[in-house]
């Protein structure tokens, strides 16, 4: 047993003076291990919902409150919750789930602005923020506020309305929570603010991914209601409890363990090689150490969740 461990983890004659675990065959095994682990997480996540996933406490109401709080801090008027916009956000979220894409524009070229029209919201200005894999509403809004383009949407004085959809389900192979936040100013606002609208329309004549703005000639008044938030329940009762294992934490633990193991092996290898004054053909240990050290730092500090 001791011999085997020494063969695996220390450079010696039996492993041609390089720890077996650091040799190409072992590194290939690590690669295979990561791929198999990731495949398992994906397959188990799909086959046994509730075992692997992300338990989030995100709610549309909290997101609206937090968004308006950020606006209030800057002295901006709060956004009104709009049912048509919430429907548009829900349509977009459903489309992303159904077509399995993480983008402002779907694979078939459908832009966010299509969903505004489909839900009957004729807009003067429109914008969209997306988020996924977060655990709570505060983290979502913080991530958006830390991104200049998303922050621009949240604190834009041009927007009057907001609609949010929070949808949980199996997305791109993993159970997660998807958030679609849509902003808009109805075309009817053009009548009241002709001068302002003309100037702004010249500035932004083309819709841009997360800071969308597209002036239109239409004049329509979308229905305004006080409650227009969509928190869709987990699908069909299969996801009606929190997952047994958090897939993000599991992946993080696996990645950290592997990186730490490789770092430890490189240190042991370097110490033994230096002490025994062994010369060999190999990659640079210090460079490997720096690379894995940086990787470890990233793994330690990376936060859960993606925004777009």
């Amino acid at each position: 047993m001791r011999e085997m461990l020494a063969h695996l983890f220390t450079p010696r004659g039996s492993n041609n003076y390089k720890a077996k675990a650091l040799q190409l065959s072992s590194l290939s095994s690590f690669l295979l291990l990561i791929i198999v682990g990731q495949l398992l997480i994906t397959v188990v996540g799909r086959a046994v919902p509730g075992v692997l996933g992300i338990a989030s406490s995100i709610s549309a109401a909290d997101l609206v409150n937090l968004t308006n709080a950020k606006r209030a801090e800057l002295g901006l008027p709060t956004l009104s919750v709009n049912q048509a916009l919430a429907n548009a956000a829900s349509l977009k979220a459903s489309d992303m789930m159904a077509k399995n894409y993480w983008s402002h524009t779907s694979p078939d070229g459908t832009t966010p602005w299509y969903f505004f029209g489909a839900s009957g919201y004729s807009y003067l200005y429109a914008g969209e923020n997306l988020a996924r894999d977060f655990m709570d509403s505060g983290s979502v809004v913080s991530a958006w506020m830390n991104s200049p383009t998303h922050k621009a949407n949240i604190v834009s004085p041009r927007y009057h309305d907001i609609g949010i959809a929070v949808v949980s389900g199996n997305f791109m192979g993993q159970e997660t929570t998807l958030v679609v936040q849509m902003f808009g100013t109805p075309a009817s606002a053009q009548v009241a603010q002709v001068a302002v609208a003309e100037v702004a329309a010249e500035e932004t004549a083309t819709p841009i991914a997360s800071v969308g703005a597209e002036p239109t000639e239409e004049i329509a008044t979308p229905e305004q209601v006080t409650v227009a938030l969509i928190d869709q329940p987990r699908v069909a009762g299969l996801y009606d409890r929190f997952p047994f294992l958090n897939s993000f934490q599991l992946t993080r633990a696996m990645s950290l363990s592997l990186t730490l193991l490789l770092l430890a092996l490189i240190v042991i290898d370097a110490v033994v090689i230096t002490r025994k004054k062994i010369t060999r053909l190999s990659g640079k240990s210090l460079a490997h150490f720096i690379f894995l050290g940086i990787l470890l730092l990233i793994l330690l500090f990376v936060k859960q969740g993606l925004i777009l």
Partner: protein
Amino acid sequence: MRQNLWLALILAVLAVVYLTLPDLRLVTAVVIGLVYFLYGIIIHLTDKSLHLLVVLEFLSFLGTAILIFISYRA
């Protein structure tokens, strides 16, 4: 030694980009892997110690890192 310092500096900057600009995570992850791979090739070329085994070793580290990033949904 100086090359290692440069490597550490460049990778540290890329790590900061990765952590602070979530929109660019995938691109940054690939760049981190490629920078390290190219560093390995160049250093061993200048040392005149570039062999297939060394290239494959650096490729393995590159692959491991990119896979870890991908599993993190980069």
